[in-house]
């Protein structure tokens, strides 16, 4: 990436951070949650470019959140960096195990099995009294390298961390997609047999992507847990994973920025809808999903590409 682009991104990052801090509390709260979810969707997009739709990213989103919660509540560890490290490590290990089975499958099997695994976690959490069952439990305020801010400071801290994560991970993801590994995803989607004949291991390629996606989902979950101060099993429920898929389709897989922007849009729309039409949110999502599939299968980013006169990439 050129020095100029890097500089521009740095400026954009700082601007986003400052802008976020200046927003009224409820807005910066929403913004932070949106960024967390955006990271989950970024991981999902990596998988979708390889032709795999996971209906179970909620598993790692929830794991990331619960690890964060448990560390602050039961182990009295509140340092943001430590928490992130722990939640990512834990989720990556779980993903490495589950992936051994899951990544042998494609298409509907992959979609449904991934959903099944997140529902298994949901089932386990709901029956677990220590972790609060369906109510979940509260998460204490995070700190950073010894600095322990009060509640408002904590929200700002998480916002800042989220912005930092979004920009650095976004840049890394962008570079990843331009590497052999990134292109390999599309090769897998287009022609697995050919890839094997070229000496590529399709399983390995998918396995790595699955683990990366899990890590990103865990980070998203941690961010959500820390800013909202609460975790509950709903995060592993199929509806949560379904939302991630919806946001991914809404944004499209064309660029690493698409999932983040789509997530912000989604959260804004959801906030508006819950004020105006609270009992029909799912129905609205359903119709919107159909509309996207029928009219905008490459997501909103395809509109950006059309504006730039590029051909929109193939829909998942």
């Amino acid at each position: 990436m050129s020095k100029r682009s890097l500089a521009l991104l740095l400026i954009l990052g700082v601007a986003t951070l400052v802008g976020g801090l200046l927003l009224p509390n409820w807005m910066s709260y929403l913004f932070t949650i949106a960024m967390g979810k955006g990271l989950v969707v970024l991981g999902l997009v990596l998988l979708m470019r390889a032709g795999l739709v996971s209906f179970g990213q909620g598993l790692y989103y929830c794991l990331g959140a619960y690890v964060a919660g448990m560390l602050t509540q039961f182990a009295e560890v509140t340092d943001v960096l430590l928490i992130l490290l722990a939640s990512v490590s834990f989720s990556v290990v779980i993903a490495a195990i589950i992936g051994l089975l899951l990544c042998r499958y494609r298409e509907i099997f992959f979609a449904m099995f991934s959903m099944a695994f997140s529902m298994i976690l949901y089932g386990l959490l709901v029956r677990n009294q220590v972790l609060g069952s369906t109510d979940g439990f509260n998460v204490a305020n995070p700190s950073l390298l010894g600095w322990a801010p009060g509640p408002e400071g904590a929200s700002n801290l998480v916002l800042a961390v989220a912005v930092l994560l979004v920009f650095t991970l976004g840049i890394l993801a962008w570079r990843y997609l331009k590497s052999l590994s990134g292109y390999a995803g599309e090769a897998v989607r287009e022609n697995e047999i050919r890839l094997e004949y070229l000496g590529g291991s399709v399983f390995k390629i998918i396995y790595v992507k699955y683990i990366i996606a899990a890590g990103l989902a865990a980070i998203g979950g941690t961010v959500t847990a820390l800013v909202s101060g609460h975790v509950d099993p709903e995060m592993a429920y199929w509806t949560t994973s379904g939302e991630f898929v919806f946001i991914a389709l809404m944004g499209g897989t064309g660029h690493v920025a698409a999932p983040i922007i789509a997530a912000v849009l989604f959260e804004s729309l959801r906030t508006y809808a819950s004020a105006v039409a609270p009992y029909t949110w799912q129905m609205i999502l359903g119709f919107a999903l159909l509309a996207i599939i029928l009219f905008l299968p490459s997501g909103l980013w395809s509109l950006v590409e059309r504006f730039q006169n590029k051909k929109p990439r193939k829909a998942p």
Partner: protein
Amino acid sequence: MKQLLAILVDGSVYASWLFIISAGLTLIYGVMRILNMSHGSFYALGAYSGASMVGWYFSTGSVPWLSFVVLIGAALAAGVTVGLLVERGLLRFMYGRDEVVMILVTYAVLLIMEDAIKLIWGVEPYFAYQPYTMLGRTKFMGLTFANYDFMLIGVSILIGLALWYGLNRTRNGKLLRVIIHDREIAGALGINVSKIFTITFVIGAGIGALAGALTAPGLSVVPGMGIEVIVLAFAVVVIGGLGSISGALVGALIVGMARATAVHLYPEVELFVIYAVMGLVLAFRPQGLFAVANARKI
């Protein structure tokens, strides 16, 4: 010994319930190559229609045993109507698309139906316990069983036989099996694939709704009851082999027994056990037990 009997009976009852639910799902997949995520909503639809009609029926003070007819009739009517609507109004425009896209489409239908059910019936639970209690109980070897559950086993056997007869002895059934094996050739042979698709989807939806209605008397009908059903039904169908009805039967038995064992011995791992069993079967037969063969690609 007593526990073993309890597990066997519970397992059989649960297996019957699973079979009725899964049969519709696997039929639709086998013929149309669509994994119908909204199957759970049809289940819920059947439960709500059945339960609410039964509730109304008993308030009119009519003959008690006819409530079964009301239960089943309401569910079938709702399932068939909505099934027809969904297939003719939406799905038939999407055939030929990627399988995963079809999941997303049926997922959208699921979302819409879930809220539609909430709008029509509200969020309070429904109870239609009368058919359940009406049949009384049986005491055997120190255990008490509800006769309704035995009836459920009987109904599932009936449905199984009806499906077997329909697929193997009737002309339309044989056409269905041709389509299951090769949709393109079927079309080339002049089979009206579009009509068969409609029939299949409506039957699948109807059976799904029926499953819901039959379950309703045993528990409370609440929002979201359809969702967990999909996860279970999928496990059953995958174990048996997508598209195979006999597979669904065997899968239902395996899952039913596994789950009953878990529930009696270590309840927390119920769902985990079911998926562990599925993982085990797939480790040895990745296509499921009775899968339809796939042709070579290169």
